């Protein structure tokens, strides 16, 4: 299973990954300005930049082989996409109980503030080609690969 890996040494904490992640999950996936200026509520980014200068890195769902979130999900909303292997959340079935948030040791699942009471997590931008965070990182600090560092 491929994962997105953060290269701490190249991350400068610019948060462009968060910006592009929000945009790509908004009603205007291809337009940053509209995504931020026209969305009623800008979607919560599904990647989180953590920073304690000089250290910073971006973190998102690990798409685990043994996903704690999926096992913990009380509704069955969290599932593994058979084709890609990605762990996805079905917003229709999610009730926003937050059990997956307390189950995920990586802190990779977020409360989505743009929708009422559901969780947001990395979906690898499956319908967009490469993940937006990886594509738009100016320093190549995010890499998608099998078993990186």
């Amino acid at each position, binding site marked *: 299973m491929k994962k997105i*890996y*953060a290269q701490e040494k190249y991350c400068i904490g610019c948060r462009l990954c968060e910006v592009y992640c929000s945009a790509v999950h908004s009603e205007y996936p291809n337009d940053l300005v509209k995504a931020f200026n026209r969305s009623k509520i800008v979607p919560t980014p599904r990647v989180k930049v*953590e920073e304690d200068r000089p250290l910073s890195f971006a973190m998102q769902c690990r798409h*685990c082989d043994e996903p704690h979130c999926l096992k913990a999900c009380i509704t069955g909303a969290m599932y593994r996409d058979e084709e890609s292997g990605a762990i996805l959340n079905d917003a229709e079935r999610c009730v926003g109980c937050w059990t997956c*948030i*307390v189950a995920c040791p*990586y802190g990779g699942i977020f409360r989505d503030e743009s929708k009422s009471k559901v969780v947001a997590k990395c979906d690898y931008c499956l319908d967009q080609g490469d993940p937006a965070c990886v594509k738009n990182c100016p320093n190549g600090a995010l890499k998608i690969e099998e078993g990186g560092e």
Partner: protein
Amino acid sequence: MQYVIVGNSAAAIGAVESIRNYDTENPILVISDEPYHTYSRPLISYYLTGLRDEESIMYRPKNFYDRYKVETMLGRRVEAVVTEKKQLKLDNQEIISYNKLLIATGGKPFLPPIEGATGPDIYNFIKLDDAKDLKEVAQPGKSAVVIGGGLIGLKVAEGLLKNEVAVTVVDLAPQLLNSILDAAGAGIVKKCLEKKGMEFHLGTTAKTIQNFGERKIVGLADGKEVVADFVVVAVGVVPNKHLVEDTDIKVNRGIVTDHAMGTSVEGIFAAGDVAENYDVLFGQNRVIPILPNAYEQGQVAGANMAGQKSVYPGGFAKNAIGFFGLSMVTAGITTAPDETFQEYSSQPTEDRYLKVVIKEGKLVGFVRINAVDRSGILTGLLMQQKDVTDLIPQLISEEIGLIDLPQDLRKARLKGDAVQ
């Protein structure tokens, strides 16, 4: 080879999905006394409030049984297991043979010794049928007494209140949510619910329930009486283990299971709320009746039924729950049982409270009220049992991140699959 699973909830579904990872051919039979497609038990509180209907509380899609090649006998009760013949006796006298059996019969309501605690207008809140019955009577303007101020009691109380039913909660414990919260956290929840109009009699217990015309009078141990239209007994759940009574399957509080989720009888497994297994934080065997553990135990049982060597590492309680928008997550031991444990917490406010319980430098429990975000990072530390002495201020701050962890733990988490 015939797999038989008694039960149709999280543990059963975990087992089915796991068996089919390893064995796509041999038949699986699921038997349940409930007539429904697999549904999520915790979602019955969403059904009661009207946020979800019967269709949308289903735990797996409609095509689940077809897809996983599962035969079902729904609405059929298993009366007995005859271990020496590897057979089940059903309520219609039918005999079912099995090679591998999973008992995933869940929990049933604990009925305290209250005089008059059965009969009409007295309800429980465990199954969909319970919620359907309650939904019928939960009409605006009615009143209810809920006996039990734990997870089930408060969820049903909240649901009734949202249906404009006046609710009084009675609990023997001096605080609410005794099993998952400490006194300070429970105080925040109580205030929130009182503001919504809920009334409480804590530190006392219901002794009698008597008819009073069309209504009920609940007599309390402290001498008070509460009159209401109906009563919900929601004191807790106990393992639904009638199936294994009078067999050689070893039972303690729940059905005793080993690391493979096997019982004392070969070929018979148990998982979920009916099973007792190792609590890694309490250091002893316990029943931990929560859905995530049920699913995971079912998965392990299923793998072993299919001939794998899968190990259940033990579990601990973790809960995410909310009332009227007050969200909280708690895990493990939330009140220090003795002086070998230390407690550290934020100053509780009206709607926020963060706390950790530490033993020998390791995290053994936490409470986070209105500070849900990224709380799983703490859950990971509970699982890993690494020394967190230097992290305590961060652990009770709202902004917990992987960046707060020591470098080795941080790197391992960034890599993924580091916490099993």
